[in-house]
Structure formats: C-alpha cells, structure tokens
C-alpha cells in the first residue's frame, strides 16, 4: 500500500488451529476491542458487535481503518472494537471536523465514526450538516437513543415531542429526524436501522464501508438505563408499582440487549423497549429504489404521518465525488507518507518567492 508499509497484519493473526480466519488471514479476535464498560443491555454494544462482524466479513485489515468519535456513551464504544485500528475519541459534537482533517492524513484508510444523538444533533448539529455537504468519505453511525446517556438521561434533540421521562419531565420540542436532516444536506448514503436487528445493522455497515462518500447510519439504540418512560406500561423499579420513585439514581438494573428476529422487507415490526414503551419499525420494500431522491423524500414525510420508523437503505447517490476526489489527492499514496523532498520546494524556488514580493 505504501513503500514501507506491510500489506496486512498477518504478523498478529493467531496461529491457532481451528480458529476461523478470513481472506486476509485474520480471526474475529483481531477485530475486537477492549471489554465494554457500557451498561449491560445497551444497544450500543450490539452495534459494536456488528461492526466487528462486518469488518471481519469484509476482510478489511484493521490497520486500514480508523475509528473516530465525539463524547458520550456511544462515543466511548470505539474503544470496544478494532483494537488494531487507530482511533480518536475527540470532543463533544466536533468529531466531524476531526474526521475531515484525519481523512487527508491517509485518504486510503476507511474511516468509521461513532456518535450519539446528542453529540450529533445537539452540540454537533453544525458540523454534522457540513460534513455531509462536503461528502467526506466515511461511515458515520449515530447510536440514537433520544437521551444523553453519559450525563444521566437528559433529553436530546431526537427525543419525541411529548415524551415524559421520570427525572426529566416532558419534552416540549419536536424530534430532529436524522434521516431527514441527512437528505436536506445532500448526504450520499442515508440509512436507518435498529440496534436489535443484527443482520440489517451488519448489512448496512458493510454497504456503508463500500460507499465512496459520507454514509449516514441512524441506528435506534435504546438506552436501557435512562430511556425510562414514565407512562409506559411497566417501567422498572417501584416507580409505578408503588407510586413513588425509587429515588436512587445510582441503581442501574442489568438488562438484556433487545434483539428482533428476522422480519421481511416491506413489513412492520413492533418492538418493546426495556421500559415497556414500543416503537414500530418499517422495513423498506425489497424493490424499493434508493437512488430516487424524490421518492425517498415522500416516504420520509409519510413515515412521519404514520409514526413509523423507516429502516433500511433509504437513499444512495454513488456517483457524487467525495471530498478526497475534489482535492485531487494522490491515487496510490497517503499524504502522511510524504517526505521532505516532496514537501519542501527546491532551494532555487526561494528566488521565485522573493520575486513575488517587490
């Protein structure tokens, strides 16, 4: 890939006998990260697992990927996959700018970014919109739970209007629809899924990794701990059973990750969350044409009226040049491998510089 670079990480692949290896000679372990420190049952963990599976199955060498994130529980998760990939856990809401700069360092790497709904649609709204305008080649996953997990459950901008949370009261504002924002900003790959739909998530991540441009994945990923809907039929704890609050913010019961089994394209599936509230997923038809922008826009409007969450690859525009293309970067070599004689003009050119002056 670059004169003094290895072509893959074989050196680290286990010699073990019956460990399954992929085409680049790596086992799934080579794609794992540190043990998660997120809550048991957090949707984010399911997504991390699908990222590992997708990278393994796509036969990407981990050294050929970079991981980026902002700040939040979601943004912590890059530590829990792809240990052999460089990563940057940057600032709250500012990952897009860091990702943009990093892309220029080695544009031959695939970058995969993790963010949360607060990180992306509250503090990060501006940078989120502009990275889509620039069509920065990267996979941008929003682990969308409608709350700020890491700061203990305040509403984010994607919380449904009218949602009532135990310690937060009622959310008065309309929810930001990440998919609609992506469309408005001309994102070239727009998809939505649910953390519990393992296969769809994995499939979309693979597709996104193969897209040359910005790929937005809005993945609904329930916060088992704080997305605790007062009005739901059986929110945990004494809260409802005993008409008074448990009153210990620090108690977090261990839940299972929600998994929805396979369900066919074109159908809807109602999913019950940990707190008993439900969401309705609607998978796009098999024959749906994701390159038809008008159709996509109409579907999104409809889904709002029907109050269903459209899932699947909603829109893709494969042809638009990515930021890397716009900047005419070298075909085969990353900028960060360039050395002095490629970067510093020859001695003689100092005359030219002075001649430019008077």
């Amino acid at each position, binding site marked *: 890939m670059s004169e003094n670079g290895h072509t893959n990480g074989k050196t680290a692949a286990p010699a073990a006998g019956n460990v399954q290896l992929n085409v680049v000679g790596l086992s799934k372990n080579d794609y794992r990260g540190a043990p998660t420190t997120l809550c048991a049952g957090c949707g984010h963990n399911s997504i991390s697992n699908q990222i590992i599976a997708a990278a393994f199955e796509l036969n990407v060498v981990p050294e050929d990927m970079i991981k980026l994130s902002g700040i939040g529980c979601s943004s912590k998760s890059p530590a829990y996959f792809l240990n052999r990939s460089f*990563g940057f856990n*940057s600032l709250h809401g500012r990952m897009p700018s860091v990702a943009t700069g990093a892309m220029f360092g080695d544009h031959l790497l695939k970058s995969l970014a993790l963010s949360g709904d607060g990180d992306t649609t509250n503090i990060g709204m501006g940078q989120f919109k502009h990275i889509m305008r620039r069509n920065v080649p990267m996979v941008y996953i929003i682990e969308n739970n409608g709350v700020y997990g890491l700061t203990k459950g305040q509403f984010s901008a994607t919380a449904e209007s009218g949602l009532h949370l135990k310690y937060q009261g009622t959310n008065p504002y309309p929810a930001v629809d990440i998919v609609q924002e992506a469309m408005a900003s001309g994102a070239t790959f727009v998809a939505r899924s649910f953390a519990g739909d393992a296969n769809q998530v994995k499939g979309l991540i693979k597709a996104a990794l193969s897209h040359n441009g910005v790929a937005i994945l809005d993945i609904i990923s329930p916060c088992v701990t704080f997305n605790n809907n007062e009005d739901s039929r059986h929110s945990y704890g004494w809260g409802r059973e005993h008409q008074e609050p448990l009153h210990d913010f620090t108690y977090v019961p261990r839940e299972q990750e929600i998994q929805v089994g396979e369900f066919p394209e074109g159908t809807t599936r109602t999913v019950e969350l940990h707190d008993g509230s439900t969401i309705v997923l609607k998978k796009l038809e098999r024959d749906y044409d994701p390159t038809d922008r008008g159709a996509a826009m109409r579907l999104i409007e409809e889904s709002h009226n029907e109050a269903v969450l459209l899932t699947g690859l909603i829109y893709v525009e494969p042809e638009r040049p990515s930021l890397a293309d716009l900047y005419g970067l070298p075909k085969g070599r990353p900028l960060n491998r360039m050395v002095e004689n490629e970067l510093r003009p020859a001695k003689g050119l100092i005359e030219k510089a002075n001649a430019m*002056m008077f």
Partner: protein
Amino acid sequence: MTTPQLKEATITRSKGEVVNDFAMTVATMNGSGSQTSNVTLLRALFKMGIPVSGKNLFPSNIQGLPTWYTIRVSKQGYLARRNTQEIVVAMNADTFVQDLASVVPGGAFYYGDHLKFEIKRDDISIYSFPAKQLAKDSSAPANLRDYVANMAYVGVLAQMLDIDMNKVREALEFHFDGKEKPIAINMGVIEAAFAWSTANLKKTDPYRVEPMDKTAGYIMADGNTAAALGAIFGGVQFAAWYPITPASSLAESLAQNIGAFRDKEGQDGKTYAIVQAEDELAAIGMAVGAGWAGLRAMTSTSGPGISLMTEFAGLAYYAEVPIVIWDVQRVGPSTGLPTRTSQGDILSTHFLGHGDTQHILLLPGSAQECFEFGWKAFDIAERMQTPVFVMSDLDLGMNQWMTKPFQYPETPMDRGKILWEKDLEELKNNWQRYKDVDSDGVTWRTVPGNKNPHSAWFARGTGHNEAAKYSEQAGDWENNMQRLKKKFATAKEYVPAPDVSTAKGAEIGIIAYGSADPAILEARDYLAEDGLQTDYLRLRAVPFRDSVRDFVTGHRKTYVVEMNRDGQMHKLLQLEFPQLANQLISIPKHDGLPLNARWVKQAIQAEEQSHE
C-alpha cells in the same frame, strides 16, 4: 502629542529643504480603489533606494467610509508610524476639513479640485489638481474613471516631490504583472497629471525626495503573504481556515500560491489540501485531525477565532497533537476593532483552555520573520507534539514592509519523534505512546496508516496512562501532567532565541516584540540623543530562554513595551521571573494604531523621571 509635533516640524523646516524625511497621508473613501496608487507611490520610492513604510488605516466596511494611507519616507530608515504628517492628499469630502487640519505647519496640502471647500490655513502650502478631469481625458473605460482618478495624485506627487517616473513605471509593471493595457492606462493618467502639475503648480513647500542606496538587499512584503510562503517552504500539508480580518489574506495567499511551488509536472495528485471550514471550531478541529494523522497542519485566524478554538487547543495540548495556529491579532476584546492592530491576545492564548495549560507562542517581528516562522513553527510543533501559536498582528500581516529577503530554511525539516513500521520492528514493538523514554518530556508517536499491528493507539482528551489507555488513576494523571510541564521546559531550547542589541553604558533595558520593533529602534535613537542609552531585547518566543532572565538581571530597570491594555507580556515575564518583578516596568499602549516612536520615548522618559 503636540510637543513632538512641533518638534518634528521644526527639525525639518530649519534646514529649509527637507529631503527624504517626512510622512505623507492620502485620504480617500473606502472602496474608491486607491490601493494601486498608494502602493505604486510606495514602491517607486522604495526603488529609488529610500527607506519607506506604508500603513493603511481602513474602516471595518467595504465602501464609503474614510480610509487613510500613510507613507513614511525616512532617510534614517525609520519604519514606524509617525503621529504627524507633512503632506496630505485629500480625495474624500467627508474628511476634508480634518485632513486639512492634520497637516503640520509648513506642510503641503493637495486636493482634488472637485472638492469645494473654503480653505483658511495660510501656514501651509495648498495645491489643488483636476483629478476627475484627468481621469475623464484618459483612455480608461467610463466605469473605471473614479478609480483612475486616484492615479492623478500619483502623477502630481511624482512631479512635486521629484519621484522618479521610471520607478513609478516599474512599480506599475510589477503590480499589473507586465500586462501592457492596464499599465498603459494607469501610466497615461499619471503622466498627464505629471505634465499638468509641471505646467500649473508652483512648489512652495520644502518636502522632496532624492535617490539613495538604502533599500538594496531588501524587499517589500506583507506578513500574511510571507507567512503563507513560509508555510509552503515548511512543507505545509493541510490548512483549514475561516475568513476573518486581518487573517484572511494569509490563508488566501496560501491557497493562491501553493500550487506554483508544490505542484510538479506529472506528479500523481496534490501534496496538500486547503479547506475553508464552516467556522473556527471546525477549522482547528480539522487541523487537529490532520495533525494527529501525521500531516503538517495549520490554521490561521484572529482573536474571535482563537476564542472559539479554546476547547480544541486544550485537547491538542493534552492529547499532544502538533498543529500550527496563526493569530493575526486585531483589537479585542470581542469583535472590537477588526481593522486595527493589537498585541492583546498574549495572555489568553498562552493559557488557552480550561485546566492547566501552557502554550508555545512565536512572536515574529518582521515580514521576513513571518516567512521564517512560517516554516519553523511546523518543526517546533512536530518536535514538541503540541500546538504552536504564531502571534502576528494586523500591522505586520496586512501592511507592506521593507524587509530582508526570505531565506531558504537553513535546517532540514524536523518531523519530530515519529515511528513507522520499520522503527517499531527495530524496537521489537516495545514502545508506548506516552512513555518518556528520552526523559525530555517528549514521547514517541505513530500515525494512522502505519501497518504494524502494534502501532495503533487511541487518542483521547480523557485521562490516560503511558500506554495511551484510559485511566482515572490519580498517579497516571499527575505523572502525565508533570511530563507535559517538563516538555514545556524542554521547548525553551527549541524556540527562537531573543534578539539582543546593546548600547555602550546602557543601564536600562527595553523588551518588546512583534510589530513594536521599528518604533523601539527609532525610540532608542531619540533616547540616546537625549542622553539615555538603552539595550534592547526583542522577544521571539514564549517560553523564555534563560538569556531573557540574564538581560533583565543585567539592567537597573527593564521597560516592557507592548500594544495592549494590561501589559500582557510584562505579566508573563513577572510570572517567569518573580524575583525580578520590581525591575520590570510595563509600558502598554492600546489605541489600535501601530506604535509610535516618540510616544515610546516620552513614556520611558516619564517613567524614568517618576522613579528618580
């Protein structure tokens, strides 16, 4: 400032004729397009071998507000702003009265005859000229008449001051890059005006110029273009920026010129990228991403942008990401005076970011040094793996300066402590991102794209140990922060040393930096004339070398002259040398104008008396 006014006036008039020693101000309206005329005059004088400086005093708008351009001609080679002007050219009705009043007694006042005002002063020479008519008679297209009208005063002044018309032509040829047509049209007006002046004006004032040889070995340059070219020779690979006065022209000339120096025949793709970001948070964020990924990355802005970069500056400091940030300072706080110059961001930039932070500041003092620091800043940033702030200002960045030619970097690029695949193999992969193996506080880094399976690490602004793993251990935090402090101490030896010039028997010292330099040089002569010898240390960076301490210790008193309200550099010196605090005296000025030598002289004399 009346005393020096009269003084200057008398100095000059006593000799009857005053040659190569006066200031001349052209008063126009913003947007009227006087820039070509003004730099043409400036350059013609420069080509005549006469030391000159040009300062543009413009409003924060695009069209219609008053703007003044002052050219100082100084056989002594003084380039600082003068408070007084011997010659004024009035082209703006709105300021005609004050412009007339601003001429020193015995001076000369020129104005376009389309401005109808009653003129009462009889202590100066008054000349009017038919600017509009000359423009109308020219071959310039109708829609450009207002513009070429400005060429009229070039011709008139050339004739009245003995400016060499060949040099005027040379200046135009340079300006229009040899394009005959515009040269012809402009030159036409100038010559017509020259002829008209010969025929119609009788010179009654003493001011004129004569050729000298004092500009040989100098060029004329603005600091922003110099900085951009310096960055290009520093091998800049990535620049992200957001427009802001007075920094915009730095990034713009980078974008406009880098191709000419860096694009090679048949090379596959560019070796650089310059991105206009959506704001300053994004600009520095992109630079941080690029710096982390191993590029020579920079951004350029002014005060408001620096404020917005605060959080990222802290991240880059703590995660140890090399980036270069140019702060072309303007007057703050807040939006302040966007078109006035200042040195007001020193303290806030040095401490930029919550928590314990200390940033390296470079302090260019000339256009030539803007070029030098343009490349050197990258060496320091990559060597120290930290943000390096280059503190320029509007005066240095946007005005034309007579300066030494740019020198090709005398040292090869220093990419700092970076490990690639082979290096790691040699180390048997026994390496930790934040382990201080050389005990200089600077650790070894790898960058994305390194294919060694042991090369990756996870960058973060949260607590981490030597292995770059997340850590909340008190000890890990303390050790890491102490190492960063050590690193800052190490930086002392890598930043540019101060520039010291001494005078015999001097007991007092002057410390200054940046665009204050010419005023200090001039003021020292005035002080010497009055019998006060001074040594002078020009700071070129924070942290301070030990030689700064020695300088202060070596003097009864040291005056720290700077262009802000609170004596910001004086404060940093106090903090660094508490024992010497009583010897350090702050001389701050914050009127938004380039520093004036006579003010400096008087301020120091006042202090000297007050302490006697």
